[in-house]
């Protein structure tokens, strides 16, 4: 059982009222004892997790759980077995599909590759066209006078927009508020 903090309190307050050097020491010791009645307070549960998360330290390992490791191991095993069985599987496939020779397969692969490259080229053409348009628009903007006019137009349109919005909201205030 802990000693009653009341005794320490009485000694402390009594020492504070006395006026000699020894009383200082007594008061300090008694107050230290009294503070033992104020134990450290624990923060709410999960405090450490929240600190680590906030500090960006809590980056979880995606393969930390046993299941994730098992799935990864199974996937690796299946891949290695697949590599081992690939020649036999290809031979079986060729036997099942006699009309398809290996050269046909290679040919269709090359054809698909060429089509993909052509598609990419047309995308690049469109991109090139867009760049040309942007350059054509940007060229006059480099002239200070044009830029000043454009800026003036922007300010005028912003003011007009603001005025219009004030008008509309003002009108709404007058017409849509019930009279008291």
């Amino acid at each position, binding site marked *: 059982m802990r000693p009653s903090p009341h005794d320490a309190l009485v000694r402390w307050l009594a020492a504070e009222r006395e006026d000699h050097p020894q009383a200082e020491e007594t008061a300090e010791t008694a107050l230290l004892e*009294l503070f033992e009645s104020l134990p450290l307070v*624990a923060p*709410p549960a999960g405090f450490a997790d929240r600190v680590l998360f906030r*500090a960006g330290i*809590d980056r979880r390992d995606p393969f930390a759980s046993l299941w994730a490791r098992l799935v990864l191991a199974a996937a690796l095993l299946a891949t290695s077995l697949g590599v081992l069985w690939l020649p036999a599987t290809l031979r079986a496939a060729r036997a099942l599909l006699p009309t398809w020779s290996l050269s046909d397969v290679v040919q269709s692969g090359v054809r698909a590759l060429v089509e993909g490259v052509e598609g990419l080229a047309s995308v690049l053409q469109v991109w090139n066209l867009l760049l040309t348009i942007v350059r054509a628009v940007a060229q006059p903007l480099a002239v200070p006078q044009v830029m000043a006019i454009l800026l003036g137009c922007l300010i005028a349109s912003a003011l007009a927009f603001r005025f219009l919005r004030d008008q509309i909201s003002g009108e709404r205030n007058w017409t849509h508020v019930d009279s008291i």
Partner: protein
Amino acid sequence: MKTDAELVASARRGSQDACRELVRRFERPVYSLVLRMVRDPAAAEDLAQEVFVKAFRRLDTYDERWKLSSWLFKIAHNTTIDHLRRGGPETVSLEAEEGDDRGGGGLGAVLADAAAEDPHVQAERRDLARSLEKAIGGLRPEYRQAVLMFYAHGASYQDICEVTGLPLGTVKTNLHRARKELAEAMTFLGWGPPGTAAG
């Protein structure tokens, strides 16, 4: 069990477990100090988290000649003083938290290990703890900090000097005046000899 220095070395190498262990080792002293400074459990948790986040970000600047607890207290001191200077809410009294121990911030924690005691002694201990918390809360922040570090956390005069950046004489004066003010407050709250309580 790893020493503080070993944990700091592991944390510097990026060990998440070491960081977690450091938080667990110092969460109580840091949180208690901040809670008794700001007297608001929600703000105290936020500030205590901030203390550790700052500590992890500045771990490379930690000088191992210091005690780790003193270094953390220094960060806690700066963080809470900044919060109080910004005018953070210092209005939620711990006393008002009676019966509300959500999140471990209430005074019920004071009695955590007193379950086997006589109910009368428990009640007295609770009342006394509440009054002491109230009296501490009434001190100026610099006095409060010194009192909490010296009496509640067992810090030495030198530790307090390092944490607060104040000279030894000022720290001793602050502690002396704080003790006198605490005694007056406790007497005012009715804990003095008969006939001395005000109100």
